[in-house]
Structure formats: structure tokens, C-alpha cells
């Protein structure tokens, strides 16, 4: 049984279960909807202003929503100690991690697909820069959040007061990623200068931490 077959099996399983009880998706949705509303109440921006801050808004909303969802990543595996069943099996630990990360990635991307239009409407955004670049930024940025988030969620389930633990571990590490996403988005929307540097930074961030996670997850999983 290869890495991929297990990854796919686990991913399929998770998606099926999440579909039956839409816990994670719901709380994410609820949270980010409220964020949009709050801002639409808190001030009505001119196009220029909104271009300046929209990047920050969008990504903060997604970051927090992601944290809310990530906190539930491992809850299901813990319930009847199912994780033990995985640990005694010959299946590669990386597969489990990949599946979880991909699953979360999927959820957050869906969320973004729902939210982005809302933001655009609320802040009547029009990108002055090359809009298509928002797609790589979005994907790379989301993965950056999710890959570390999944990993640290695995760390934090082994600690007391888990929920607050995840952001404590995740935020400091994600600072450069957040910086890069926000800046890139802002630059693209406001159309001043090139977002090349930031995209490259995001790319390196993703590569570095994906490898790190895959390499170290075994240790985390087997640490009883």
C-alpha cells in the first residue's frame, strides 16, 4: 500500500464524515461571514482605502477561520482512540498528515471561494494590478496556513487546553507567510509595483515547511 493510496483513502473518509456532520465547515463559514459584516458596518470605504486594507481583511478572516477549523482536525481521530488503530497499522504516518492537510486545504479553499465574491461586492474591489496573480497567491498562502496549522494541531492535541494552544504555536511561525500574503494581495489590488518577491517568498515558505512537516510528523505521531 503506497503513500498515495492511503492518503486518498483517508481523505475520502474525512470528506465523507465531514459531509455528514458539517461541523468544521459551519463554524468557519459563520465566522468569516460575521467578519465581513462587521467591517461593512464599521465603515464604508472609498475604493482607494479598501484596496489598501482589503488584503489584510481577507487574510485575517481566512487565518482565523482556518484556526477554528484546524482545531477540529484531529478531534475525530481522538474520539475512540482511532488514532491508535492507525499507529499500529503499517500505513505511513506521512499519508495521514497529507490527507489531513489536503482536507483542510480543501475546506479553506471552498470557504475562500464563498467569501472572495462577498468581499469584492462589499468593498467594490477592482484589481489595478494583474488580477490573475491573486490565484497563485491565494493557493500558496492557503497552503502555507494549512500545512503548519495541521501539524501544530497534531502537536496541540497532546496538550492541555488545546483550543487556545493552536494559535499560540501557529501564529508566530506564520508571521512571514501572513506578511507575504497581505503584501502581495495589496500590491496586486493597488497595482503598485510587482508582487514577484512575495510570491517567491511564499513558495519557499511552503516548500520548506511542507518538507519539515512530512519529515517530522512521524515523531509527533509516535510520541505517546
Amino acid at each position, binding site marked *: 500500500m503506497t503513500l498515495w493510496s492511503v492518503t486518498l483513502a483517508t481523505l475520502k473518509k474525512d470528506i465523507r464524515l465531514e459531509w455528514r456532520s458539517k461541523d468544521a465547515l459551519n463554524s468557519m463559514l459563520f465566522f468569516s461571514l460575521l467578519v465581513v459584516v462587521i467591517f461593512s458596518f464599521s465603515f464604508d470605504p472609498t475604493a482607494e482605502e479598501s484596496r489598501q486594507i482589503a488584503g489584510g481583511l481577507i487574510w485575517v478572516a481566512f487565518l482565523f477561520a482556518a484556526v477554528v477549523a484546524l482545531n477540529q482536525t484531529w478531534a475525530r481521530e481522538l474520539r475512540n482512540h482511532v488514532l491508535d488503530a492507525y499507529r499500529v*497499522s*503499517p500505513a505511513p504516518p506521512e499519508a495521514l498528515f497529507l490527507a489531513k492537510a489536503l482536507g483542510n486545504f480543501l475546506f479553506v479553499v471552498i470557504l475562500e471561494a464563498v467569501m472572495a465574491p462577498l468581499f469584492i461586492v462589499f468593498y467594490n474591489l477592482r484589481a489595478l494590478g494583474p488580477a490573475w496573480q491573486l490565484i497563485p497567491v491565494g493557493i500558496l498562502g492557503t497552503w502555507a496556513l494549512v500545512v503548519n496549522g495541521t501539524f501544530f494541531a497534531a502537536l496541540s492535541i497532546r496538550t492541555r487546553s488545546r483550543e487556545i494552544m493552536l494559535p499560540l504555536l501557529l501564529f508566530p511561525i506564520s508571521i512571514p507567510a501572513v506578511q507575504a500574503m497581505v503584501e502581495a494581495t495589496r500590491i496586486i489590488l493597488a497595482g503598485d509595483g510587482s508582487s514577484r518577491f512575495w510570491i517567491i517568498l511564499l513558495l519557499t515558505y511552503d516548500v520548506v515547511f511542507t518538507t519539515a512537516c512530512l519529515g517530522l510528523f512521524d515523531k509527533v505521531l509516535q510520541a505517546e
Partner: protein
Amino acid sequence: MPAPAIAVSNVVKQFGRFAALRGVTAEFDPGRFHTILGDNGAGKTTLLRALAGLAQPTRGEISIFGQSPRDACRDLGYMAHPSLLYDEMSGMENLRYFAGLYGIEGDEPCAAAIRAVRLDPELTRPVGQYSQGMRQRMSLARAILHDPKVLLLDEPFSNVDVHSAAEMVGLLKGMRDAGKTIFVVTHQATLLEGAADEFIWMQSGQIVDRTPSSVRPRVQ
């Protein structure tokens, strides 16, 4: 006399300021039916978890067919107190997933395992809605799914009704006769009198006695 299937050499397992295993040393022959008895808190579960590779011993060595438990995982079938099943999925869905982890294709093996524990593979009810005993049996089905050489069963008969228990004992006996090594932790020794080859007594983290089944176990 065959080479020991499992060798445990003075294993200590510490939980912070408390030691659940205090230097367990033993050798277990392959193809035999070992029953582990002992009071609550004697360390039976802890020992089983160590054998399954779920708990790293603080000190000491465990070898299964000469390998470490982690490496021998394909040969190990482990059943615990918790069901190790997803409550939201039906039994068949559960087994299908776990079969995947062992690289087993197709539904037939899963259905066979479920039938072996006298449940209905067609049952669409999620495991969370099973009765306790049904869940217990499904959990056993998970453990024997990949038909391992060594079975580590933690109180498989608790909550299981008398008839099913008898049938499960029969099943285990059959597997023993097929050359598998079986460890059963239980408090219902009477159920196993016919089947077990050996009774192992644990007390406060140590193996205090091993009686071949010819001798009547000290229960009641």
C-alpha cells in the same frame, strides 16, 4: 521447543511519578493461547500496549519474532478497551478503511471478518448506534482483519453476551490451531478454561505466576 515468538526483557513503564510496569521479563512461545489475568490496575493493558508498540517502555526490550513491535506491526492485531472505530461510519465502511491501511483490497476480507464475529456485514447503522457488545465484536473484527500472526486482545468478552462469547472463544481457538499466537486479557477466566494453554497472573506491574491450563486457574 520452538524459538520464543515474543521476548520481553525487564520492561519498565513509568507514568510520571508512577510505574505501571515494574520490570516484566518473560518469553512466550508461538502458536499458543495465553490468558493474562490480574486485578484492576495490575498493568495488563499497559503491557499489551507496550507489546503493540503503542507505548515506548521507559526501560527494557521487547522483541516480536526478533523485530521491534513497530517493525512487526503487520504481524500484530490489537484490540483495546475503546472501540478504535469511527462512530459515524457503518461497520463495513470502518473495516474497508482499515483494510486500506494494510493494503487489503476488496470487500470480501472485511465481510468475512464481520461474519467471523457473528455480525451482519449488511448492517448500515453507524457503529455509534450499535449496542455495546456489538461494538466490542466489531472492534475484534478490526483486529483480526489482516489476519495477523499475533493477537493482542484487551478484554474482548466484556459486554459480550454468553453465546457470542463462546463463539468468539471458538473462533480464537481455531486461529490458535492455525498457528497464531494469542494474548487475551480478561477477568472471565472461566470462559477460556477449555481454550487457553496458559494463564499468566499479573500483580502491581509484574508477572507473578504462569500456570499451564492443565492446572485449574485460581478464579473463584
